């Protein structure tokens, strides 16, 4: 095994081009587990910690440019108002120690269906900026996940930045685990209201081979809210509407039975989370007009 220490982004791209089998390591929260447990012996480990711009972030008018190595703790502390769903999701990642090291870029690189940031990215809307010596690609996050622990990166590409839409309405994130902290998702759900476009987006994690959007549910709810004049009136969503949305979200799942939970339970739980997060976001939307909230109403210190 060789240890590569690129000092700049350009050096990293060159190294990745020269050694396509090199495994990038930033927080190490996935890669080092595989090395410690003898599940992976890459030819090269490439440390990305020295590359400053990967740890930087910038809030633009419409999007947040999040460097791929920005740790979850920064998202929680600094970006909760711009990216409330992602901040909630980040808060469910591992432990404080893991949140100090792990990053959204790493989550995307690992592409585990159980990665906590995926449902929040799907709900908010995000693009992955992948780069190689050959050039730069912008991939909608929906298209980035290609299979269980597989993503759309070419072998010479690295994730540079994740461009995430700034919240223009309430967002929520829920995750089911069988422990109250430090737990891998049995299943997870991200939900965002987009009052500007009068649409909603829903992301599901750990309930299919890849993270996915519940598009039929989004379309149904978006149409129902628009047709019913809910966006303007801000009136309460009838239970039947919420129930149908929840059922469509559950129906979007394609889960498996494993040691963490059964397929039937995952479907059930996604439905419950969909109904609840819709309720929380809509309550927040109503109570603040078209207000942006910080952490979506939950008191999460």
């Amino acid at each position, binding site marked *: 095994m060789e240890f590569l220490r690129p000092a700049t982004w350009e050096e990293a791209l060159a190294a990745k081009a020269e050694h396509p089998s090199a495994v990038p390591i930033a927080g190490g929260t996935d890669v080092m*587990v595989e090395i410690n447990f003898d599940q992976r012996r890459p030819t090269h480990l490439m440390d990305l910690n020295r590359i400053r711009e990967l740890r930087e972030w910038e809030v633009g008018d419409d999007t947040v440019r999040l460097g791929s190595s920005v740790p979850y703790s920064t998202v929680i502390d600094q970006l909760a108002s711009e990216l409330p769903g992602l901040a909630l999701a980040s808060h469910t990642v591992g*432990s404080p120690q893991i949140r100090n090291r792990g990053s959204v870029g790493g989550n995307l690189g690992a592409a585990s269906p159980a990665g906590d940031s995926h449902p929040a990215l799907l709900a908010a809307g995000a693009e992955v900026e992948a780069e190689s010596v050959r050039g730069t690609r912008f991939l909608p996050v929906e298209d980035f996940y290609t299979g269980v622990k597989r993503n759309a990166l070419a072998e010479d590409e690295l994730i540079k930045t994740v461009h995430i839409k700034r919240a223009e309405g309430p967002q929520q994130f829920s995750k089911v685990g069988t422990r*109250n902290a430090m737990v891998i998702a049995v299943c997870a759900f991200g939900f965002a209201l987009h009052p500007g476009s009068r649409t909603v987006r829903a992301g599901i994690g750990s309930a299919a081979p890849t993270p996915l959007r519940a598009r039929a549910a989004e379309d149904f709810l978006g149409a129902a809210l628009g047709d019913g004049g809910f966006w303007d009136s801000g009136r309460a969503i009838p239970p039947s509407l919420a129930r149908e949305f929840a059922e469509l979200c559950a129906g979007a799942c394609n889960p498996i039975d494993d040691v963490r939970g059964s397929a039937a339970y995952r479907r059930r739980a996604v439905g419950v989370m969909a109904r609840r997060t819709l309720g929380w976001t809509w309550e927040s939307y109503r109570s603040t007009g078209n207000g942006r909230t910080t952490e979506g109403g939950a008191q999460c*210190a």
Partner: protein
Amino acid sequence: MRVTFTVNGRRHEADDVWEGESLLYVLRERMGLPGSKNACEQGECGSCTVRLDGESVCSCLVAAGQAEGREVVTVEGLAAYAKERAGSAHTGGLAPVQQAFLDAGAVQCGFCTPGLLVAADELIERNPQPSDADIREALSGNLCRCTGYEKIMDAVRLAAARTGDGAPEVV
């Protein structure tokens, strides 16, 4: 490969490091600092918690090469670290969290203790008067199998009270 970094204020160097070695392994097996513990090596238990450039991290998940040129504080250096923070001129003795863990009976087998101490010290540094919920959240990455955590809660409350009371930070 060779790695060089600072541990507890002292420069350490290790040669012939295999590239897959973790910071934890290098501390324990190459630098004579076995205080950080190897309980799970997958970031689930917090027993290997150290400060890396000030941040609490699981040293089992840091590749040794990633620590190159950086500052590491381990449980072995915690008392001196706390003293320096408090601006104390005293030498010797224990950090307030260390003394509080002893006094409260928060140590049984002690294998989780080094990681818990580093995490609890970082909490009190950041939040001198933590609520119970704050303590539980801050220590949720540190597993203990012996104590049921009750006396760990007592110890952190005690350390915070002693620190906050204007009592000398170093006892």
